[in-house]
């Protein structure tokens, strides 16, 4: 019998802030963190609402005890370190130093926010010498290695990039390593900082809404892009018990499948998303009706919400409340899977159904619509969190009350 995997600590930073309280307050106050960016350098910052973390790179660096200014760190790494730092504030770091653990990180564009500013200089014949230290920050794994080093850790490291399902995939990888007895603990999650590259990428795909995003609405018009970093500490149940750890949830189910339908678009009938959710539930040994809340991927793009909405309708028949929390944070890409997993954990812990902001009109293709009112004092024994990405990459995660 494989080991049970539990989640015992979390850390995250988003445009709402860091920590559980600030996010729960935002959910209760229906206060989105999306705004016009102050730190990103892009032509679009005056016209596109973005989920930008409200701290400058210098503020992030100084809070981590690093020098401000031209310090060689990118925003991607600073966000990662900040979120891991928050996770570690509730954990004895010796746990991770005395025994080999896994650090599974996820990222979609490395330190692109910095590289796009330096690129012309880097390919010129006279690159300024102070720029050279940023060359390694091109790589997605830079944030992984820099974060481990910052905290004096030497884990098994892996960096995953499956577009918008990346960090959900990272959580799954850590759980699988624990179940197979390779490690007893894993810090899993992801980070992405805003970059003009990403903003322009989604903008050129005409996937971006200039006003607040409206997931699952008939008149939805695309996403608001965001940035974030988030991590969960996964432990084998035995390892958590041994140290008397508070257990937030058991990680009971997961599935990673592929649509195999189109290189970027999901199967419009939702068959891919349906298969992923069904497989994750089967692993958890749950009937669909036992799930109390679904944190949907809900990007507010035409394609995703149609496919995902149909899949939710078919599998859950309108009996389980679902919402997309992306109107609160923006779509944080590689971090989306993990921060939404953490929101799902908090929903379960606090008995909350988190509302789907900006919803007005049900989609004409669907008989179901998202939860729009915050509900408190609910009993949530099982929650499901979806993350779907480019390349047909689908991941669903199931968490259960310990």
């Amino acid at each position, binding site marked *: 019998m494989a080991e049970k995997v539990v989640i015992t600590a979390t850390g995250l930073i988003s445009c709402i802030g860091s920590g559980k309280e600030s996010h729960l307050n935002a959910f209760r106050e229906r206060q989105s963190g999306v705004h016009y960016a102050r730190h990103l350098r*892009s*032509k*679009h910052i005056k016209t596109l609402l973005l989920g930008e973390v409200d701290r400058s790179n210098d503020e992030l660096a100084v809070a981590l005890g690093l020098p401000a200014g031209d310090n060689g760190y990118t925003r991607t790494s600073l966000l990662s370190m900040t979120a891991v730092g928050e996770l570690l504030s509730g954990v004895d770091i010796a746990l991770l130093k005395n025994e080999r653990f896994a650090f599974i990180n996820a*990222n*979609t564009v490395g330190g692109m926010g910095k590289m*796009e500013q330096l*690129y*012309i200089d*880097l*390919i010129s014949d006279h*690159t300024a010498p102070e720029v*050279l230290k940023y*060359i*390694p920050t*091109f*790589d*997605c*794994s830079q944030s*992984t*290695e820099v974060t481990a080093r910052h905290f004096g850790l*030497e884990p*098994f*490291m*892996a*960096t*995953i*990039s*499956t*577009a918008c399902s990346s960090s959900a*995939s990272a959580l799954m*990888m850590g759980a*699988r*390593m624990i179940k*197979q007895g*390779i490690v007893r603990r894993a810090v899993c999650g992801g980070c992405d900082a805003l970059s*003009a*590259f990403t903003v*322009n*990428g*989604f*903008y*050129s*795909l005409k996937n971006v809404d200039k006003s607040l995003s409206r997931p699952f609405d008939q008149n939805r018009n695309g996403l608001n892009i965001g940035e974030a970093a988030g991590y969960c500490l996964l432990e084998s149940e035995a390892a958590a018990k041994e140290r008397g750890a508070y257990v937030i949830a058991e990680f009971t189910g997961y599935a*990673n*499948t*592929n*649509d*195999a*339908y*189109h*290189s*970027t678009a999901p199967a419009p009938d939702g068959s*891919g998303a349906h*298969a992923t959710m069904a497989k994750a539930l089967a692993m958890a040994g749950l009937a669909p009706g036992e799930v109390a809340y679904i944190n949907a991927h809900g990007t507010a793009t035409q394609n995703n919400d149609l496919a995902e909405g149909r899949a939710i309708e078919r599998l859950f028949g309108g009996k389980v409340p679902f919402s997309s929390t992306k109107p609160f944070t923006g779509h944080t890409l590689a971090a989306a899977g993990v921060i939404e997993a953490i929101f799902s954990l908090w929903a379960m812990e606090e008995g909350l159904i988190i509302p789907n902001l900006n919803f007005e009109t049900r989609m004409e293709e669907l008989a179901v619509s998202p939860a729009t009112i915050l509900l408190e004092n609910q009993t949530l024994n099982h929650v499901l969190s979806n993350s779907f*990405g*480019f*390349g*047909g*990459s689908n991941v669903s995660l199931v968490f259960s009350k310990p």
Partner: protein
Amino acid sequence: MTQPLYIISSCAISPQLSYDSEHFLAPPVSTDSGKMYVGDVDYHRYISPVAIRRMSRMLKIGITAGMRCLEKAGVKTPLAIITGTSRGSVTDMEVFMKDMITLEEEALNPSGFIQSTYNSVNGWLALMAQCKGYNQAFVHRGFSFELAVFDAMLTLAETDSDAYILCGSFDELTEDYYKIRDKAGFFKRLTPPNLALLAHYDTPGSIAGEGAAFFTVSNNSTGASCAILDVEMIHQADWTKVKNAIDDLLIKNGLVAADIDILLSGMNGDSRNAFIVEPLLAALPVQTSIVVFKHLCGEYATASSFGIWLAHSIFNLGKIPPAALYRSGTSTNIRNMLFFNVTISNNVSVMLLRACV
């Protein structure tokens, strides 16, 4: 990890004539440029003319290597697709980045953005092979391929029935990429001819390369000439860490050093890792032959997959191509092989391979 990965088929698209070539590195391709590029193959075999026109080079190479590999194994739809790449389609990233800068963020073509996504080859492979199962992409520099191998072992350990996984890697060399990494000290100032690379271990840097290599791996040994038994990754390696990892691998698999018939070494001519490579070579028993490959494919983050392609070819053919032989040992067997790779930033991976009898 105890799950052997039986290699059923392999396919490499590399700077050598490795794709469906009857000439196994005979003669090897050579260049003085310090840049070893992949030669185009017939991409039409698997990709439609419409798709080919839109696809960048890395996608065509990666998709074709993957699909050819499955075809060779006679596997239509694998259980899972697991890849590793350090930088994905660099050309696409560059095109989108430069357009964004020169067009001042106006009227951009999204193709470069989409295709530069690190899992875009995975998405295409899933679509073409109709693989709706597990799909994963690792992007961890010099360990990207090793992590794909590691995850393939995890995935096969989770299944009770016979299963086949498509596992591989791809990375691309471009002019900009060379220029930038050269500034980071990746490449030799005076580039030697590739075939003489390892005679230049006295200067820092290596020569640049690129390529894709895919493997159909299984938990069923039928049709396999060899298996990967173990993979270890060592960050910021030194000789002690490497020695301990190799000793552990041998003990775990009931072997002593003299049982190693072949060391397949990813030494890259960079003087900055001589402090690892020299003691490694000095510690080898007389039995062990040394086979090398970076002079054939150049140095790139996932070059280890070309090395494993060479390993599989050696097990398949039962002989070592002269172009890859660095030193002959006294053993005439091709049974136990130790794979060693070192990257420019001194990250080391070791794998243990064994012939299937």
